[in-house]
């Protein structure tokens, strides 16, 4: 089983809808430890992304993802614009002109996206960021694949780990981003970036599951 370019378009549309639906929730999470704009900024970015999709609807997966990345960089601002923008750009570069993508290529795309986030954000696991949801998700996805689980099954296992990673940010002390200025008062709140990363992963799994 491989993921098609049409499914990638459907995935991006699903992300946009999910971010819009959860906009106020993301903003509430951000109000607790940041500056209350995470949901608003991502919704603004993905709303513009939606308008760019028709132009790339018949293109390869790399072109679709690069368009998403460029649009996010140009519209979101804050830290999440460069981070998610870089992630989609890197994934698009790895996938290139393919019309379908299997598990091995998906692992390469995920890992390159994560590397992009880490180098742009100068951050690593355990700092209460989106990385704490993304990295365990990729690890579980890889492990499942090498244990012989099929693409959808591996994605499902990755999503479970991603959700656990998101929840694991609650007791963490933030040491990166604006939440770090709260010191110990950042403890007890779920990271908004980890939450939006989970929503994106969930949209991918739901798209493939259909």
């Amino acid at each position, binding site marked *: 089983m491989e993921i098609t370019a049409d499914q990638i378009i459907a995935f991006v549309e699903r992300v946009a809808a999910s971010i819009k639906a959860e906009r106020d929730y993301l*903003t509430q999470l951000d109000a607790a430890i940041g500056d209350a*704009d995470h949901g608003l900024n991502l919704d603004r970015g993905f709303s513009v992304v939606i308008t760019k999709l028709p132009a790339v609807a018949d293109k390869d997966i790399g072109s679709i993802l690069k368009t998403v990345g460029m649009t996010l960089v140009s519209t979101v*601002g804050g*830290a999440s614009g*460069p981070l998610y923008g870089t992630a989609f750009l890197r994934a698009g570069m790895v996938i290139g002109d393919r019309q379908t993508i299997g598990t091995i290529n998906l692992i390469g795309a995920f890992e390159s996206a994560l590397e992009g986030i880490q180098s742009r954000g100068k951050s690593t696991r355990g700092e209460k960021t989106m990385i704490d949801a993304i990295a365990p998700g990729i690890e579980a996805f890889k492990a499942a694949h090498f244990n012989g689980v099929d693409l959808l099954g591996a994605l499902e296992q990755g999503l479970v780990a991603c959700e656990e990673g998101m929840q694991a940010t609650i007791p963490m*002390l933030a*040491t990166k981003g*604006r939440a770090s200025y*709260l010191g110990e*008062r950042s403890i007890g709140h779920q990271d908004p970036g980890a939450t939006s990363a989970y929503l994106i992963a969930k949209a991918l799994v739901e798209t493939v599951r259909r």
Partner: protein
Amino acid sequence: MKKLINAPEDVVSEALAGMAAAHADLIRVHADPFLIVRADAPIAGKVGIISGGGSGHEPMHGGFVGRGMLDAACPGHIFTSPVPDQILAAIHAVDAGRGVLQIVKNYTGDVMNFAMAAELAAAEGIQVATVVTDDDVAVENSTWTAGRRGVGITVLLEKIVGAAAEAGADLATLTALAQHVNAEGRSMGMALTACTVPHVGRPGFDLPEDEIELGIGIHGEPGRHRVAMAPAAQIAAMLATPILEDLPFQHGDQVLAFVNGMGGTPLIELYVMYHELNKLLTAQGIHIRRRLIGNYITALDMAGCAFTLLRLDDHLTQLWDAPVLTPALRWGI
């Protein structure tokens, strides 16, 4: 929420339209992307000085565009950094061939977006240098945070470096000067109330009537400590002491004292705070050689204030005194 707005999503563009109408002699305002550019930019033979950041801190940065200060400012959405294409457009608008200096406050998003813009400009062969301000002593442990935030020193730095650029200094000299000003300055702020972001519609945090938040930033984010409300003299000491100890400022030092309002505090209270700061510094043998009092780097409608002290020498004092003509700061012309 009661605010003098039409719709939350139109606040930034309508405020920019107002600035354009009010200050057409000094600045040009672009709507897409948002840019405020000095009316006569690019200036032949001059290094371009740009800055930017989220909106909601007015008059910073757009109010500081003009002769003797910034060549362009990139306002983002409220409390959200500008995006790389927007910053690149500012670089294009001010580059006269001698390079461009970006002045960036140390916030994760601002640093990343300006870094991406600098990479794009470098790919086009434009010389870009970046100086990141990080003067906020409220951030006690830089190792375990994103580092000290850039706050009040940014205003003083933009004035001083802008004066040196106007006098013809090259990019390397201006970069070194900016780093020097940042290194010689320290700030600390406090809030009496939280601010309300228009699209959120309620205050960013709850602050009881009898408590204040110490060590706040400029984005309505909570501070490091919450303490009981106290008379101005005690609050002044809570702000000044960590500043003085950190550099440290010493007996005999000459300083520029900046008492900044957070946006919702009347000037009469800022002068009470200046009076207290003056007494504190005098008692320690520190001489206030220059001062700035008012709302210059704000957090929307937050009530509260911040102190910034910059150690002055004759050179910095001359640059501070040099003529400036911008919407928010003007003297000597």
